[in-house]
């Protein structure tokens, strides 16, 4: 299975209109000036995959993930990210050729997850995607600055990486 598109609405700098990003099955590159919103797309992926710590998405709390209105717009009432999968190979354990995962958070920080529009728990999403989307240690997601951390890591912590993998 692969991600056919990402949809964002009200998430960080992505405003109140729905933004749709159709992905390649192979390599999709995202470019643009400093501060344009590239890492915010990465944060959106972390968000919809159920990350529990807002800090990982460079936010103090989950309500900081809502579009704050920027320069004179009205702030978003909620932030929502959807991940659409092509599941024709049935790699995802669900009886559907297209699978849409979404997560919405409102100003109070309350989250609602959905699988194909039906409400679901975070655990159901994690179970559905664990085999394809997450690796022990989360090393399939290399965030901005992670390489520098790997460069500076001390030998003991580097060995602990292996402990955790084993």
């Amino acid at each position, binding site marked *: 299975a692969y991600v056919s598109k990402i949809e964002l609405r009200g998430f960080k700098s992505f405003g109140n209109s729905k933004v749709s990003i159709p992905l*390649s099955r192979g390599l999709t590159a995202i470019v643009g000036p400093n501060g344009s919103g590239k890492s915010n797309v990465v944060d959106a992926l972390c968000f919809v995959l159920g990350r529990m710590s807002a800090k990982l998405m460079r936010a103090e709390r989950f309500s900081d993930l809502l579009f704050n*209105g920027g320069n004179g717009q009205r702030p978003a009432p909620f932030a929502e990210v959807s991940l659409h999968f092509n599941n024709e190979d049935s*790699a995802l354990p669900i009886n559907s050729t297209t699978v849409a995962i979404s997560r919405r958070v409102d100003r109070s920080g309350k989250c609602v997850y959905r699988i194909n529009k039906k409400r679901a728990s975070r655990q159901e999403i994690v179970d559905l995607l664990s085999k394809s989307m997450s690796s022990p240690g989360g090393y399939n997601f290399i965030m901005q600055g992670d390489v520098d951390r790997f460069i500076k890591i001390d030998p003991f912590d580097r060995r602990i990486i292996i402990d955790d993998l084993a």
Partner: protein
Amino acid sequence: KKEVFMQTFNELSQHFSKIFSELSPGGVARLVLENEESPFEGGLEIDAKPRGKEITRVDVLSGGEKALTALAFIFALQHFRPTALYVLDEIDAHLDPQNLHRIAELIRRSSRESQVILVTLHDSMMSVADRLFGVTMEKSGISRLFSVELAGLAA
């Protein structure tokens, strides 16, 4: 417990050495346990020998060489338990044009098996993409995303 650790260590070690040689042609590197008898009492060192140089502890290497070695380590971790999607946000600072090209080629190869989303500021990295999106922030403070034609870029 040490059994499981050593199995994991050996498998990771193989991936790491292989990937390093791809990224640093003619170079070799290996993971070294400070205490092979009781690994948990020591750390994990990396010995790296780029072509034409002597074997050295990784912290004696240049900035870019350290980055390249760290990337080989990261990719080895990814090969250990492959996933369907990889997301890489600006992993290419510190690299010279030739190393950027090798990293780009390695990512291009992985993208045949897995889906990869790559955020980069470098032309040489974006040129290996199947799809390219540009992001800009408007005066309104809203990020706009648009598709970019890849044909015009130097490969």
